[in-house]
């Protein structure tokens, strides 16, 4: 019998699903139309309208998915899992977009949407490139829209749909409640959704993911141009339009990454802006490779050199984007990252996505049928093994064969420059710079991939030979490889390596522009550079000396010596790079600001690095323990002293300030409760607290479902930030009712039980008590009051057993007192009675209520007067020096790159219209010598192919 579900609106899901299927189908046909279009005669271009029509249909479908989901969320359709999981009715509408892309499906949708939108720029401006580029973009869209399908083909399920009803989800199959027609009314759980994680309820969550995914989507376009170039045989001209896309992608993706850092710093309590978390690294690596690709494209454009590298790096940056999606969405990082998705399921699909585009790229690079057939056959065989469950070995074989065919393609199909590079030329050092970036990216990618490497090491294919090697030679590193349990690296490890690479990058960035695109006299370069060099090295050494050298070795933390040694070199080079590019900017400024984009961007990057290096390495935690009980006297286990215990009214010395906890305040915003802790920073006047300087109010966002979210508060000075956040607070302290109840002077906290033996310690709220002795005593009864007494004038009651627990109490002022709670048992009736011991000074109460003769332990309740319960928190306060240099650098870099992009667009337009030589081209003269015409190259290849045949 069909069950009628009351209150369910199934049509939302059906509509959404329809749009997904439509997006999928239109993109598949879009690829076909693009293929026909590329094959057809470009003069009449008869497939143009079909291809465009399909792209319109595709864009409309993607918008349809987006708005259906949005409206479902606005209308609180909690019968849908995605809506239930990410929103709730009390949530403010301004977070609706944040909620939409909180989940895996939503972020895929965002990516899909950006592709669909950005494609229109190609249709508007792409000219001859429109057909193939839209074809490649559509192919990417096929995979992305399939990730939203959520359908099953036998055991294989493809994608995960945001339009699935909760009762139809896999984990709920066959559960009894799914058979109840009015489950939405009956089960309270479905009355309201789960809501957005409180940590994500801020404007960052609204702007960061769209920017990052716009960056991701933009990286697809240089890739699409590269593939289009291979596809249409125009190997030498795709770089010109792709260069603009590349630098736009660099700006947007870079901004997205930096926003992530700013978010982490401003409103998440990660204690910094960059933690080398795998999720952060996963988007940084493609960016670095893309920067390399952009610079190599520039070399290619001017000198016609490095053709293969333009392909290699452009394709690599796109594949790395897909790989980064694999890392963050497949759940493989679950152990090593704080904020990766943990749900499994898209693992295989994402692996196939990545491998497909690797296969496609290599096929296009193999410009001949026979190797394509061989390579494809290998890929298919590998795929069969992959599906059979040998995924690890299959991937290794696929990777190796792809690499081999790529090398082969380079040897066979790509022109080699006959002439040696000139050593003292801009192109040579720019190429080296790109290479350094790529090597640095490989270092990050490799260690971020450790969870993946472990999976590979665990395959038979690698495990057996490594184990054999270990058995033979007993080398420790082989043992670890054989165990396949390598752990991810700590941030310090990345810092050291990347600081080293950055030294090289900074040096190259400083001198690079002073060379021309041909052999330049070294003396000329030296002449132009010596003033910035001397000035920079001087400034840099002063900075480095102050920051890293003059610190006594004894004050360094372990591992800091080597980092500081590297930074001592890095800082002067960074300053050199900033000065040299600034000087270059001044020198060429006469040519107008339009030409200065690159130097501005380089100055910005230099500032960014300088700010990042100084603020991270010189982060100074000032909330060190300067008061209270000496920790080591009580606990002989070390501590890192970053956090400080502060109670209301306390005034403690912190760095150059005195800090006092004034009060806490409950506020409500958008239906969410906040607890704000007002902390005043006072001047230090000769060791005494002085005038109030400023107030910081770190706060806690209350959320019963998902746990409270801690948010920092920061005071910005131009030269440093003071950053504070609550590290720990007792749950009861956040409860407003507790603070109301404290108004009753006789109210005590809920007693806490302690089972202790002689010598044990109870850590009560206001005191430490140590059990010194347990003793039997005679009990006398005071006849006038009928109360028990351990000593007195009355007769001894032999039916009563009295036990006294003698405690030594140490209060916060280190005063010692003795308190004796007692316990009585009546031998005849079995009744037990207790006499509380109250220490009025500390407001603590102890109740001795049970004896455990078998172990010699006793049970004691401890509680404290509510109005004397300490109002306290644990706080961390840090100074980040020079962090504004970092943010300034970000801004300058973005401005510089945007100027460079606008200039590039202008030059492209000029050269399209008038074929006028642009400024840069007048400075080069080797261009045409190295530039092979497409036709010539094509005929060469055809001849070779004929020979082979």
């Amino acid at each position, binding site marked *: 019998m069909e069950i009628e579900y009351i209150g369910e609106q199934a049509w939302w899901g059906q509509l959404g699903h329809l749009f997904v299927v439509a997006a999928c189908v239109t993109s598949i046909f879009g690829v076909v139309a693009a293929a026909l279009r590329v094959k057809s005669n470009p003069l009449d271009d008869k497939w143009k309208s079909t291809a465009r029509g399909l792209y319109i249909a595709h864009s409309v479908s993607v918008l349809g998915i987006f708005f259906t989901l949005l409206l479902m969320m606005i209308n609180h359709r909690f019968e849908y899992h995605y809506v239930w999981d990410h929103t709730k009715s009390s949530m403010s509408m301004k977070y609706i977009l944040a909620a939409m892309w909180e989940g895996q499906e939503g972020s895929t949708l965002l990516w899909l949407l950006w592709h669909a939108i950005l494609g229109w720029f190609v249709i508007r401006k792409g000219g001859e490139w429109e057909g193939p580029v839209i074809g490649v973009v559509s192919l990417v869209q096929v995979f992305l829209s399939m990730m939203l399908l959520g359908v099953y083909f036998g055991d294989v399920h493809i994608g995960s749909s945001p339009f699935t009803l909760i009762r139809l989800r896999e984990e709920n199959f066959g*559960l009894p409640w799914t058979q109840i027609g009015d489950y939405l009314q009956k089960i309270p759980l479905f009355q309201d959704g*789960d809501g957005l994680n409180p940590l994500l309820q801020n404007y960052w969550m609204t702007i960061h993911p769209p920017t990052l995914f716009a960056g991701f989507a933009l990286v697809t376009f240089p890739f699409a141009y590269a593939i289009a170039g291979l596809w249409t045989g125009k190997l030498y001209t795709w770089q010109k339009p792709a260069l603009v896309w590349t630098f736009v992608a660099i700006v947007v993706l870079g901004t997205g990454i930096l926003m992530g850092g700013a978010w982490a710093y401003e409103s998440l309590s990660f204690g910094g802006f960059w933690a080398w978390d795998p999720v952060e690294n996963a988007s940084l690596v493609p960016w670095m490779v893309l920067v390399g690709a952009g610079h190599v494209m520039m070399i290619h454009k001017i000198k016609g050199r490095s053709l293969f590298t333009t392909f290699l790096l452009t394709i690599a940056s796109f594949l790395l984007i897909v790989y980064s999606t694999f890392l963050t969405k497949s759940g493989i990082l679950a152990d090593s990252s704080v904020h990766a998705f*943990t749900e499994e399921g898209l693992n295989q699909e994402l692996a196939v996505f990545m491998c497909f585009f690797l296969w496609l790229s290599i096929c296009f690079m193999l410009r001949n049928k026979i190797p394509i057939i061989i390579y494809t056959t290998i890929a298919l065989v590998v795929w069969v093994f992959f599906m059979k469950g040998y995924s690890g070995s299959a991937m290794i074989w696929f990777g190796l064969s792809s690499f081999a065919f790529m090398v082969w393609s380079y040897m066979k199909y790509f022109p080699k420059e006959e002439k040696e590079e000139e050593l003292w030329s801009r192109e040579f050092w720019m190429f080296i710079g790109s290479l350094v970036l790529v090597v640095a990216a490989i270092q990050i990618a490799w260690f971020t991939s450790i969870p993946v490497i472990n999976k590979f090491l665990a395959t038979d294919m690698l495990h057996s030979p490594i184990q054999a090697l270990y058995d033979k030679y007993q080398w420790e590193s082989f043992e670890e490889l054989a165990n396949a*349990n390598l752990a991810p690296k700590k941030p310090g490890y990345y810092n050291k390596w990347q600081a080293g690479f950055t030294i090289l990058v900074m040096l190259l960035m400083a001198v690079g522009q002073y060379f021309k695109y041909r052999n330049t006299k070294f003396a000329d370069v030296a002449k132009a550079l010596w003033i910035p060099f001397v000035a920079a090295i001087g400034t840099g050494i002063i900075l480095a000396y102050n920051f890293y050298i003059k610190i006594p070795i004894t004050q360094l933390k372990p591992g800091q010596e080597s980092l500081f040694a590297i930074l001592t070199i890095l800082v002067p080079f960074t300053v050199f790079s900033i000065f040299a590019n600034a000087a270059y900017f001044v020198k060429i400024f006469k040519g107008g600001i339009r030409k200065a984009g690159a130097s501005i961007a380089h100055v910005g990057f230099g500032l960014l690095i300088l700010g990042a290096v100084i603020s991270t390495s010189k982060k100074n935690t000032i909330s060190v*323990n300067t008061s209270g*009980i000496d920790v080591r006297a009580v606990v002989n286990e070390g501590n890192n002293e970053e956090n400080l*215990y502060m109670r209301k009214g306390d005034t403690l010395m912190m760095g150059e300030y005195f800090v006092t906890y004034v009060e806490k305040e409950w506020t409500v915003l958008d239906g969410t409760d906040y607890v704000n802790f007002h902390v005043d920073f006072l001047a230090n006047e000769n060791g005494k607290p002085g005038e109030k300087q400023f107030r910081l109010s770190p706060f806690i966002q209350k959320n019963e*479902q998902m746990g409270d979210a801690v948010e920092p508060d920061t005071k910005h000075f131009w030269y440093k930030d003071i950053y504070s956040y609550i590290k*720990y607070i007792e749950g009861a302290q956040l409860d407003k009712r507790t603070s109301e109840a404290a108004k009753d002077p006789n109210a005590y906290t809920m007693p806490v039980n302690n089972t202790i033996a002689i010598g044990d310690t109870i850590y009560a709220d206001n005191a430490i008590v140590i059990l010194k002795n347990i003793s039997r005593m005679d009990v006398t009864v005071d006849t006038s009051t009928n109360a028990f007494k351990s000593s007195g004038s009355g007769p001894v009651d032999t039916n009563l057993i009295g036990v006294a627990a003698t405690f030594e109490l140490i209060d916060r002022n280190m005063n010692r007192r003795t308190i004796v709670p007692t316990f009585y048992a009546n031998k005849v009736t079995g009744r037990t009675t207790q006499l509380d011991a109250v220490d009025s000074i500390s407001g603590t109460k102890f109740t001795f209520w049970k004896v455990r003769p078998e172990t010699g332990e006793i049970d004691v309740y401890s509680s404290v007067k509510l109005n004397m319960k300490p109002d306290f928190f644990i706080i961390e306060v840090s100074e980040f020096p020079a962090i504004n240099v970092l943010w300034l650098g970000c801004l300058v870099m973005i401005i510089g790159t945007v100027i460079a992009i606008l200039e590039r667009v202008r030059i492209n337009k000029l050269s399209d219209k008038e074929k006028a030589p642009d400024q840069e081209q007048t400075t080069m003269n080797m261009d045409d010598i190295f530039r092979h015409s497409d036709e010539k190259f094509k005929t060469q290849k055809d001849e070779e192919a004929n020979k082979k045949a």
Partner: protein
Amino acid sequence: MKKLLIIGTVVIAALTVGVVLLNLSSSHYVNFTEARESAREVHVGGFLVNTKPVEYNPEIDPNTFSFYMKDRTGQEQRVIVNKALPDGFEQSSGLTVIGSMNGNNFVAADILIKCAGSRYNVAQQ
């Protein structure tokens, strides 16, 4: 081309040897038995033992807390962490501690916490 070829070869060789092999092995995932035998810093993954107390006395030492943890082989071990007690610690669905054994305790310099996803659980209703 020669220059770049030489540079390329040197870079790739240096990468393979330097980055990949030498530095790969410094810390790895183990269980507590293996941690006892290792003098180096290790990673241990596992779960919080909910039945045993999480000790944290911020007034005495805000920088240290201790708890009992079960590794993936089911072995139980007291762990001392030199940090403030993280928010939501008791609700964690998984833990990774990074440190080494010191006497009977595992002393962790760092701890990674996997938060339990908020999944509906209709069975309990």
